[in-house]
């Protein structure tokens, strides 16, 4: 009985090409767009890149030239100077072609275009230059003998910091957009889950009414539909992860099988959300669809799909919400795998997903438990 139902559930799901196709097209397109849009972002935004700066000298400042030339000679030079006059420099700054203007007089002064990190770095450079100039001037004044030692000391290229990575994970912050994309596909699995109740409830469809007249108990046929939908959605999740990993070549770290498991469980979460919303009373189907889409998008938004640091903002204001927000839990599960050495966090996330799914399913079953309807 159960297998018969399951067989046909799968058959129907596979032939309702609409959802299936969209569930595959969706991550394929968006994944490609993300990849295109974010490909460069990593180097340009959070990663370290060269800061363009205009230099305006009142009188030729050879010391400054030497320093700047030395910096530019380095491999990862953080500064690139353009020597020009004041007017031109201001134009460049306005057109965003340079991030700041260094004016060279007795001391260096700086004009920057905003308060960003680039400005900070520039101002630190200028400050350091001034500081050094001061130290050297003072040294020469106090003890000309040791002055050369002071200068030598200052021009030594030193590296005082040793980096201690906290994890072996992908340092690319933007991989989280792909985590969120997978979470979105999983949550949109709720659309797959929505039709379960519709096809099994007598008051929602003629098919449901017919099924209700058969000797197959509703719990069995509903369970078969649920499992069928989970299998289908799980398949979509597997395709989605495979595509992102092997076609878009996004680095998921070293736990790929667990990524698949986590995505699959995410799919279960999505389907059970849809099942739950589907079983709420007699709301029209298009209404239920809007509710699902809205909930899904809200969940994804708060998990940082659109604006990357949304999750951090949520963490600051409503930390508990990140622990239960479905999209956040799903995307966090991938991120845990990549970032944490142990599996504790990952297991916590997986358990959270399963508990949320179980609650949705339970509530769904409770709501469809009623056998007779006051109205059809």
């Amino acid at each position: 009985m159960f297998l018969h139902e399951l067989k046909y559930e799968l058959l129907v799901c596979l032939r309702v090409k609409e959802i299936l196709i969209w569930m595959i097209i969706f991550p394929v397109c968006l994944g490609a767009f993300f990849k295109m849009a974010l490909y460069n972002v990593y180097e340009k935004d959070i990663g370290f890149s060269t800061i363009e700066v205009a230099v305006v000298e009142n009188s030729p400042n050879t010391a400054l030239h030497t320093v700047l030339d030395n910096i530019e000679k380095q491999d990862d030079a953080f500064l690139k100077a353009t020597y020009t006059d004041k007017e031109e420099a201001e134009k460049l700054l306005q057109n965003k072609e340079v991030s700041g203007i260094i004016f060279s007089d007795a001391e260096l002064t700086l004009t920057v275009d905003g308060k960003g990190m680039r400005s900070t770095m520039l101002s630190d450079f200028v400050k350091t230059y001034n500081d050094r100039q001061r130290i050297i001037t003072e040294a020469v004044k106090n003890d000309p003998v040791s002055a050369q030692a002071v200068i030598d000391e200052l021009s030594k290229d030193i590296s005082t910091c040793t980096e201690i990575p906290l994890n072996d994970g992908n340092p690319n912050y933007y991989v989280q957009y792909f985590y969120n994309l997978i979470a979105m596909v999983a949550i949109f699995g709720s659309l797959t889950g929505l039709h379960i109740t519709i096809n099994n409830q007598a008051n929602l469809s003629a098919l449901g009414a017919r099924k209700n007249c058969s000797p197959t108990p509703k719990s069995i046929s509903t369970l078969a539909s649920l499992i069928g939908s989970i299998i289908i959605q799980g398949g979509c999740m597997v395709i989605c992860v495979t595509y992102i990993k092997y076609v878009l070549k996004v680095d998921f770290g070293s736990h790929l099988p667990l990524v698949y498991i986590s995505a699959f469980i995410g799919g279960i979460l999505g389907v059970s959300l849809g099942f739950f919303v589907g079983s709420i009373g007699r709301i029209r189907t298009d209404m239920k669809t809007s509710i699902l889409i809205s909930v899904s998008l809200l969940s994804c938004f708060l998990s940082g799909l659109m604006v990357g640091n949304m999750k951090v903002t949520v963490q600051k204001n409503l930390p508990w919400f990140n622990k239960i927000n479905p999209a956040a839990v799903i995307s966090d599960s991938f991120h845990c795998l990549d970032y944490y050495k142990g599996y504790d966090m990952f297991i916590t996330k997986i358990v959270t997903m399963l508990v949320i799914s179980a609650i949705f399913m339970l509530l769904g079953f409770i709501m469809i438990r009623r056998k007779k309807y006051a109205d059809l």
Partner: protein
Amino acid sequence: MQIFKAFMKVLKKKLPSGLIYIVVFLCIAVPMALNGKESEKYEDSTLKICIFDEDDTPESKALIEYIDKKHDIVSFEKDKDILFDKLYWEEADYALTINKGYSKALESGDTNDMFGCYRVHYSYATVYMETYLNEYVSSVRAFIAGGQDSYKAAISAVDALSEETEVEIADNSDPDYPERFSSYFQYMPYILISVLMNTLCPVLMTLNRKDIRYRTNCSCVRPNRYTVQLFAGSTVFVTAVWLILMIAGLFMYGGVFKGNAWLAVLNSFIFALVSTSIAVLVSSFNIGANGVSLLTQIIGLGMCFLCGVFVPTAFLGKEVRAAANFLPASWYIKANDMLDGSAVFDGSKLAAYILIEVAFIVTIFIVALLIHRIKYNDSDSLDG
């Protein structure tokens, strides 16, 4: 007019589910705008720094004091997982260990391995702090070379490095169009596309159902007129939705718009029409309710990522930027960038951008007309 009226009737039926989208996207738009641009950059250059002092000498204390002058010092337990969380959730920007033997190293000049720094991912904060610390150590070494003992040198370095440098911030932002508010308009394309496609497409798809179109084609209404009336009905509805978004904007702006803000309002209205034409085009294909929802996200999110709505345009690759020129949102963003001061303001350029958006509307609309003609009217000769 009949079709226009029918449009309104169907719309009324579908309005409740449409309202959900409007409310939800408002819920998304406002926090997005509030959260948006500011946190993309560092508001000011004060970092939250966590320091573990394992050397515990006067020299190391001097360093901590120096750091404290400019930055905030936060303290956490020295546990990798906790640190990781704090760094990941941006409760600290940087975690630093002053290794044992720091003061000795200062004296000897063996500067490698003085500090340990933790990272989650590379960031400006990491690079900045490294430079900052190197600089400090250099200065201390310089003072030592100048004949001071290490503690004295550490103090002198703090003094020397604490002198202020004159930094002028060129402000080309527009007081009538503050950054916080401009980010509301920055994210508008996503909101408009999502809301309008999700609400409009179901209505249009009902009216475009094959049997209804065929039935209507049997009447004296010309197919082009049909599409035009659909477009007219859509425009009325779209204007209403857009007004809701603008009213929400008034609240965020804190009063009536001024100056350049009006240009942003105009720009957003044009983009609302762009979204309308996309919705009209999409609903020419009967892709079902779920198809619309998912396609909306593909178009909305995809276009917004590629056109620099979510990720600043400056960070996009050259090829992507070139390709994005074929998408209407990128012209919207170019115009908005000009208004909020991220690009140089140029009135004629702005007009050109808006005209390009209009061109998109016209093009998409013509394509929709053509598709409707081909789809619902095989023999054009009947069309008089």
